[in-house]
């Protein structure tokens, strides 16, 4: 009898709690508003930009356009790769326009400034395209979710296997600003840990068009591998020059950050055989191809860069979490996001770690020669799938205060 009573009581309590939860299922302003901040017309426009906006809109449509019965709205803005412009815009979004979450986020400098504003306002940042690993380590925040990749996963994916296979001597051609320095530092760490050495390097100003003098220096260094710690046009220009001066015949050239649009901008004769690491490749399996086909229709036929696929995945995960949590209150949503696995066309074996790092399988790929490409966009051969925990920096090593204290 007592037992029945107890059961009854529990059921009643549980029901009451569920009821109150339903009653509380509320959105701050009767809608969920997603802001997409990216470089819309500058050097990084192709790696996120308008494509990220389309990807986010696509996620919203696929989700049904509504969450908890209320509409989902997408707004976007151009940060012009300038931290001041980005943070002013985001401040306006969260303080005046009731934006609940911001995604896109490309240049690490902009993301650094913007995440500070978001954290101060207790709003979530879904970082889709930035490279720096600071956002989940020394500059981490309970409101950051870093989705697609970071410098550590690139170094682990590309550098580690090469050093282990006996390519011990490295030379760096580094973009002379925060991103390049960070990439070089992390890669150097990986090289040394695995018994390799750095025999030299140059810091080339961002936007250098002629890399021939750096390539000559790399050639005379006697390195086994020349690492390109740069991105976009810098990467394209340096690789073109390396091939032209015959560097690719005497040493391996490793592109540490190669976005799909940059790989497409390279003549296959120049780029074939180069190994790189990516968070996503459109032609991996049926699921990625199906999504890409739908995305291409909205993106002028262009295949997705990894950040664009990441923006979709992050948005979808966020919306699912809002639905599950029954609110758009950031802390509750973030807790929900961290409790659910991230499994979709983009993310395999993914989960959002305590420090905000979305850990998922990374791909080690090789650029195909023209003869093996079925279409122009058939860029990579997948060589290896790297498990997320091997690719990203372990939580314990990151030094993210709030996440470590939660243990």
């Amino acid at each position: 009898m007592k037992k029945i009573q107890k059961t009854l009581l529990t059921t009643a309590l549980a029901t009451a709690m569920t009821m109150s939860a339903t009653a509380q299922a509320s959105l701050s302003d009767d809608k969920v508003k997603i802001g997409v901040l990216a470089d819309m017309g500058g050097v990084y426009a192709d790696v996120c930009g308008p494509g990220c906006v389309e990807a986010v809109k696509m996620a919203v449509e696929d989700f049904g356009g509504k969450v908890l019965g209320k509409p989902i709205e997408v707004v976007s803005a151009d940060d012009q790769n300038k931290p001041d412009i980005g943070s002013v815009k985001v401040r306006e979004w969260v303080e005046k326009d009731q934006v609940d979450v911001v995604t896109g986020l490309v240049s690490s400098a902009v993301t650094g400034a913007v995440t500070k504003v978001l954290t101060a306002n207790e709003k979530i940042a879904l970082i889709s395209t930035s490279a720096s690993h600071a956002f989940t380590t020394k500059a981490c925040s309970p409101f950051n979710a870093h989705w697609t990749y970071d410098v550590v996963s690139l170094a682990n994916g590309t550098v580690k296997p090469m050093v282990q296979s006996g390519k011990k001597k490295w030379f760096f051609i580094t973009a002379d600003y925060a991103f390049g320095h960070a990439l070089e530092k992390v890669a150097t760490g990986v090289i040394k840990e695995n018994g390799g050495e750095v025999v030299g390097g140059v810091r080339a100003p961002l936007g250098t068009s002629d890399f021939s003098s750096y390539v000559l220096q790399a050639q005379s260094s006697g390195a086994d591998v020349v690492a390109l710690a740069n991105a976009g046009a810098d990467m394209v220009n340096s690789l073109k020059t390396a091939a032209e001066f015959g560097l690719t015949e005497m040493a391996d050239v490793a592109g540490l950050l190669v976005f799909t649009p940059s790989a497409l901008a390279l003549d296959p004769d120049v780029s074939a055989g180069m190994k790189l690491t990516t968070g996503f490749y459109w032609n991996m399996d049926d699921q990625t191809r199906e999504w890409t086909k739908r995305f291409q229709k909205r993106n002028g036929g262009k295949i997705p860069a990894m950040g664009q696929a990441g923006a979709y995945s992050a948005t979808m995960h966020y919306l699912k979490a809002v639905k599950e949590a029954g609110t758009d209150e950031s802390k509750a949503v973030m807790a929900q996001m961290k409790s659910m696995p991230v499994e979709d066309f983009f993310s395999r074996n993914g989960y959002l770690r305590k420090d905000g790092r979305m850990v998922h399988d990374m791909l080690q790929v090789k650029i195909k020669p023209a003869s093996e490409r079925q279409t122009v966009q058939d860029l990579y051969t997948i060589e290896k799938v790297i498990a997320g925990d091997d690719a990203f920096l372990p939580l314990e090593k990151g030094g993210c205060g709030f996440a470590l204290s939660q243990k």
Partner: protein
Amino acid sequence: MAEFLGINLFGLFGQLLVGLINGSFYALLALGLAIIFGLLKIINFSQGALYMLGAFAAWMALEYLQLNYWYALFLVPIVVGIFGILLERFLIRPIANEDHLYSLLLTFGIALILQGLFTDWYGSSGLPYAIPEELKGGTRLPFMYLPNYRAWIIVCSLAVCALTWFMIEKTKLGAYLRAGTENPQLMQAFGINVPLIVTLTYGFGVGLAGLAGVLAAPVYSVSPEMGSSILIVVFAIVVIGGMGSIGGAILTGLAMGIVEGLTKYFYPEASNTVIFLVMVLVLLTKPAGLFGKEA
């Protein structure tokens, strides 16, 4: 390896040669600017965008018309030149008698529009363009590997520069041109069609930018930003050489390429500022530029 005062001489020679290659490229671009300014007094800020247009036109010729590099090398400068002529005829001429600032702003606006359009059409990442088969490979010199294409850049730019200089400074046509811009009324009175000369000169100066674009397409990233990053350097070169001095632009272009090459060797971080440092020094000591005439 040969060493001198702790400097690897082979490395140094390599850098000097690479500097010379870049210098010949700068010379070609600076030449176009110097002609347009020296003869027409137009500060043409769209030169960089037209250089970009040249590279894209080469890509389009190959992609859409299956015209290879060699056709592009001849056709693209003409097409870009005609585009320039249209710009001059319909946009620049109406404000020709206003202050220089107007043409500067107008051409700057044109440059931004062109860059924006190409970013919109082709994206910001750039397009692939292969080195023509005939010029692939290279020669092993004692101190470096010289790609054939780079050697071709030197030969082609220097030949065009020399020809242009000769044409303007030493031929009758060049004399008409210089006289026509010096004193248009008098030349008109002699029965010479000065507006036509002006239009053709502008077209020629712009065509040089188109040619530089074709030369650049196989070795640099063909992207909408390519013009704006190089334009400022080229302007600095024209200022150092003396605004409007044709020989000055060519020589300064070569010299600055070498200065930049050496900086890349000794202190790479400063390589994109060294030319401006030289510019400041020259302006302080010789305000009209190294080869300019005192106004």
